[in-house]
């Protein structure tokens, strides 16, 4: 373990040189790939191959570089900057979208927690609407991170609950309970990943490097809350509905074949804002804050209200509590 409590990654050892430049294995592969593309590009300058315009050639180069990029946690600051600029440029070339991708790190002394008031939620699903728009969720498959369960009064039984109700809410004799990724302190989804593409950040948010994810979906099988979603196809978001304020570990464009999930709106919360769901909720049922701040609203709720967590017996330790008035 390193000083800040995160698992230390092995140093990347230089294991070879290429043109007298120290490179590691992956870097060498990247250079080779770039070389191939540059070669193809050079050739096609005289005889158009399958990349005839400068934009197409640039796209191919960037796609190669994207394919061979490092794991996010192994990138240096400059490599992160280069990576996000490449992804921003790719979004422009592929979809004509102007986006800005942040790599903001966790704030020191911050551990995020969430509380959901089952007495207050009226089932309006404004949170779902805000989440879809804020996080650029796939419109084609109607991906949603949040599910609002309609439950009969007095019973907490998700098997009989209806997350797709199609009538006016609140319905008589029912209450509403929302689920999303709980950012568990003991996340079962993380150790099962065969490639280390998902991990927990110091502020408690479980994130995914979409570029590193191989799409095996072991994490989805491991999650007892069905918090993760799989991209069976590349997500489709109309160009004029894309949220351009993005984070590398959050709402940036996903690719086909990778897993995604709620990140407590990492692009907002690391700047001090509330997650979109909490801010959009008209009933005040959603409380969000820093668990390490004893004077935060979330700590007041945990200290003063009746609280419970979902499937507590699994020892996943969700950082998402339910409470009632």
């Amino acid at each position, binding site marked *: 373990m390193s000083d800040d409590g995160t698992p230390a990654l092995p140093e990347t050892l230089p294991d070879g040189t290429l043109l007298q430049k120290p490179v590691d294995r992956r870097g060498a592969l990247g*250079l080779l790939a770039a070389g191939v593309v540059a070669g193809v590009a050079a050739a096609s300058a005289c005889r158009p191959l399958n990349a005839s315009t400068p934009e197409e050639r640039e796209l191919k180069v960037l796609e190669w570089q994207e394919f061979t990029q490092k794991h996010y946690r192994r990138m240096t600051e400059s490599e992160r900057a280069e990576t996000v600029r490449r992804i921003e440029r790719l979004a422009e070339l592929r979809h004509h979208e102007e986006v800005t991708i942040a790599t903001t790190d966790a704030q020191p002394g911050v551990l995020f927690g969430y509380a959901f008031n089952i007495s207050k939620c009226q089932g309006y699903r404004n949170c779902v609407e805000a989440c879809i728009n804020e996080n650029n969720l796939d419109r084609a498959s109607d991906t949603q991170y949040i599910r609002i369960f309609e439950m009969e009064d007095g019973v907490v039984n998700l098997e009989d609950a209806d997350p797709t109700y199609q009538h006016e809410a609140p319905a008589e004799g029912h209450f509403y309970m929302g689920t999303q990724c709980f950012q568990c302190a003991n996340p079962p989804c993380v150790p099962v990943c065969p490639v280390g593409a998902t991990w927990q950040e110091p502020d408690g948010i479980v994130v995914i490097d979409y570029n590193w994810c191989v799409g095996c979906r072991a994490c989805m099988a491991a999650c007892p809350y069905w918090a993760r979603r799989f991209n069976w196809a590349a997500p489709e978001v109309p160009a004029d509905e894309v*949220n351009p304020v993005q984070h590398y570990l959050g709402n940036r464009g996903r690719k086909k074949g990778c897993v995604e999930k709620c990140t407590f709106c990492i692009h907002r919360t690391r*700047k001090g*804002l509330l997650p979109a769901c909490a801010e959009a909720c008209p009933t005040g049922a959603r409380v969000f804050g820093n668990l390490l701040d004893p*004077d935060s609203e979330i700590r*007041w709720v945990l200290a003063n209200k009746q609280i419970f967590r979902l499937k507590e017996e699994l020892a996943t330790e969700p950082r998402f509590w339910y409470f009632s008035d």
Partner: protein
Amino acid sequence: MNHAWRRPAAVALVLGVFLGACREGHQVRWDQLPPGTVVIAVDSATSVRNAALEPGALTTVAADTVIGWSGPGGRPFEVAHRTGGPEAGHSRQFGTIALPIVLRVGTPALTQYPCTSCHAGSTVTMAPRRQADVHQDIQPVHPDTTGGVCASCHAREDAQLLVLAGGKRAPLDQSYRLCAQCHFQQVEAWAGGGHGKRLDGWQGRRVVMACTDCHDPHRPAAQPRIPFRAPELEKVRSTSP
């Protein structure tokens, strides 16, 4: 995913060694963008603020310090002003959409406490109960069920002033002082953070909405409405008044 790497390895090696250094010299125009540039669709003051927001920098939210209650740890906190508009008046930007934060629905004609738009400069003698020919938009469910009348909460001399127990007056922005006289449990939770809505940030300045931002004081309970993602019902909603 690009599978073109399956091209012959020999070509890769030769061209890779020969042209590998091209990667370093590759220039594209996103290099011209200053670092940290934030691109955001600007169609509300909120999105501008969100783009530049740093912890504790909620400068554009007009709010007053709460009188009589303090937040967790004895910290003072602020209650936001109503910002106008047909609903409670708070709207926020999510991606490319702006969503109003409304619990109360209705009173579309009421904006920013317009009593003075009709009653300015003249003395209005308020009837003890709502008269059938004025203020049709006010459905006095809450005062009726509690045995209250108009003057239980509104000052007779000026309907824009609230009457507290003991005869003190308070402006409408301080509705929490009036509501707390009966709903002390709710106000305690509101001050602590378990009831009501905090605006914008979890960090820094704590600005919450006032009681009447969400609750219609004359009809305080949340009313059933058509939820988001109810496609069949939404069709009905779009054609109904």
